[in-house]
């Protein structure tokens, strides 16, 4: 496989994952804003911007923080390189340049999502935004389905590798923002707003039911951290993403007949996560842990590019 093709597939995976995550983030923020016991308001939308590091970008639009303005910026703005629209533009460009490596189904899923989002002009009002998000989530599921029907060869491995790296980053950011930014001053840890916020995070990653299955004793931040950082059976957890990265690298290495620095880093990371405990992470500082993980993930991303000659 061409190195450029590998790079395009990898980034295709990252962009689709990022688009889906952003859609979920908007949905969760709407939920937090509207449905919590007490309105979360501006704080919810500010933290949504923080999760995807888009505060500065949004500030430059000059618009006040409001559900419609932030929602539009996150979903549709061409000025925001991480908006759903921008991600799908980039994903489609990548997919188009590697059409030959994708199945028709996988390409059509991307193209359909792109055609759909391209025609959305404004998302006025919550129902419209939610309808758009539902559709985008369905498209992302369709893409994932198509991906799992592709040959188990480098092409599908690289897309999934990109998605797994991106997912690890997104989950870490999501938890980190909760810990530091969201809770209004004066609100008690463990209070109703705090609880709503943790629930919202679970919603963002479709984990509310999973949480109830695993923890019978009501909502506790420590459990949420356990679920989203360390539980291998939770598909969007950091540990599960790290497992997937290591497995995919192994699969690629097996087909090429050799492995490299990226494999070593991925396995070291797996080991570190397996040895960690929730209490250890929290007592050492969740924020520090997550920042460390995000930086580590970026280094792994770079090593992957080096190993397959695409960066």
């Amino acid at each position, binding site marked *: *496989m*061409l*190195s*450029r*093709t*590998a790079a395009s597939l990898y980034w295709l995976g990252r962009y689709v994952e990022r688009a889906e995550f952003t859609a979920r983030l908007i949905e969760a923020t709407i939920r937090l804003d509207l449905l919590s016991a007490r309105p979360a308001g501006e704080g919810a939308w500010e933290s949504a911007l923080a999760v995807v590091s888009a505060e500065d970008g949004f500030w430059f639009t000059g618009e006040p923080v409001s559900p419609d303005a932030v929602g539009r910026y996150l979903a549709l703005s061409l000025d925001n390189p991480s908006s759903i629209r921008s991600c799908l533009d980039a994903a489609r*460009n990548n997919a*188009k*340049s*590697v*059409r*030959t490596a994708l199945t*028709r189904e996988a*390409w*059509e899923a991307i*193209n*359909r999502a792109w*055609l759909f989002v*391209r025609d959305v002009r404004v998302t006025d009002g919550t129902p419209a935004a939610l309808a758009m998000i539902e559709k985008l989530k369905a498209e992302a599921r369709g893409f994932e389905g198509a991906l799992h029907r592709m040959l188990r060869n*480098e092409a599908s491995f690289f897309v999934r590798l990109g998605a797994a790296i991106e997912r690890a980053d997104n989950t870490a950011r999501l938890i980190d923002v909760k810990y530091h930014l969201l809770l209004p001053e004066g609100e008690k840890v463990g209070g109703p707003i705090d609880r709503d916020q943790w629930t919202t995070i679970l919603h963002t990653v479709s984990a509310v039911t999973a949480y109830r299955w695993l923890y019978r004793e009501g909502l506790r931040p420590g459990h949420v951290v356990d679920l989203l950082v360390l539980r291998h059976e939770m598909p969007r957890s950091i540990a599960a993403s790290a497992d997937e990265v290591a497995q995919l690298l192994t699969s*690629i290495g097996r087909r*090429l*007949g050799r492995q490299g620095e990226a494999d070593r880093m991925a396995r070291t990371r797996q080991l570190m996560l397996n040895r960690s405990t929730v209490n250890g992470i929290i007592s050492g500082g969740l924020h520090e842990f997550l920042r460390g993980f995000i930086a580590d993930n970026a280094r792994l991303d770079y090593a992957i590019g080096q190993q*397959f*000659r*695409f960066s």
Partner: protein
Amino acid sequence: MASAAFDEVWGDAGPGASREGFEALAAWIAETPAQELTRRQQAAEAAFRQLGITFAVYGEDEAAERIIPFDIVPRIFAASEWRNLKAGLEQRVEAINAFLADVYGPRKILRDGVLPAELVLSNPQFRPQVAGARPPHDVYAHICGIDMVRTGPNDFFVLEDNARTPSGVSYMLENREAMIRLCPELFELFPVEPVDDYTDLLLSTLRSVAPHGRGSEPVCVLLTPGHFNSAFYEHSFLADAMGIELVEAADLEVDDDIVWMRTIDGRVRVDVIYRRLDDDYIDPLVFRSDSMLGVPGLMAAYLAGNVTLTNAPGTGIADDKAIYSYMPEIVRYYTGSEAKLPNVETWRCREKQALTYTLDNLDKLVVKLVDGSGGYGMLVGPTASKAEIERFREALVAEPHRYIAQPTLALSTVPTLTEKGVAPRHVDFRPFCLSGADGIRIVPGGLTRVALREGSLVVNSSQGGGTKDSLILADRPRRRGKAAAPEVTPMRSGAD
């Protein structure tokens, strides 16, 4: 003008009538409700849109990708019509290859004075860089798209020989897929020759011309300028169908005159490059130095005989519009017989008498830039405004050698679905001819382009034309299953 034209299904009698042998198609057109045709056409276009079978129009925003309009009413060639065309195409392509081998080799045709030497040697399409070098297996124009028009039952003319990087073959294949899905009854009605083995034949052609000694599994790649190119869909479609890598220049590097592609597993040696990039852009060290699209050193590797480029650099001289007018002489010179496919009558404005005639008849002629393409730089006299005619008159007087003139032909029409039901529209036809080391292969089919506006003669996609499937009827009775591959017609060698 439309009324004077010959209709390929209805003959001269107009809608409802039928030429002999085309009764079944005329009946199908008459009996299928326009509404039903529209529904199927829309389904086809929606599928094309979904598949991304698009082309970008230069100068428009990238998002403004368009699909080429597809017409659901097919064009049909009788078996005997195709037999004659095929023989003519083989003869023409053979002559083109012999001509290229000669002008880049011994130049006998120039010494024999068949065409003026300076017309070839000082032509911008002539590449002195490859003079004296022989491409592997002496084949130059591996893929030719010959544009043809028709004016009557037996009157086919070649309008243009596209011998550089002709496009459109993906539409031939996708249009057929759409027709089989949407109008299966047509294939029950007619025994249609298959076109779907084109990509297999293309791959065999590419493999056959690998440099000598490169083994039985030569590595072939398709070189594209990238996904912003208007024909990118076709590039990816073909690479996909052949199972070869679709590369951009940045994926290739040349070391010691050997071409390599960069892969995740290290470097892989490349033997044959089906390039869809013009000569000007393939190697900045030899051609345009400002081009970012090319591969530095590619020409040195080619000249060293270590890689095959299809089509070979320099083939542009064979499809140049100034050379075109000599094609009947060229065919006669190399094949020893008269051209089976005539040219459209052409006045070379570089010749004094022709210039005078052209200037006197601008309102009746089509005037073309010899190096123009895609319907640009062209005057269609009968429909041009006075101002346009005057502008061309000045240009002609200033630089006559840059122009040729041709009569406006009454191009044949084919019934086409329009807003007002099925009506005749003008068409042309581009079959694709493959020349390999072992001979010429032509799949029975091609791309029919149709001018969708009433009376219009301009079929270029960049000018709003559409496409149709082109069904070649088989001599055999209709039967299921795939027909045998077309036989290979051996090429005569070189200029001798």
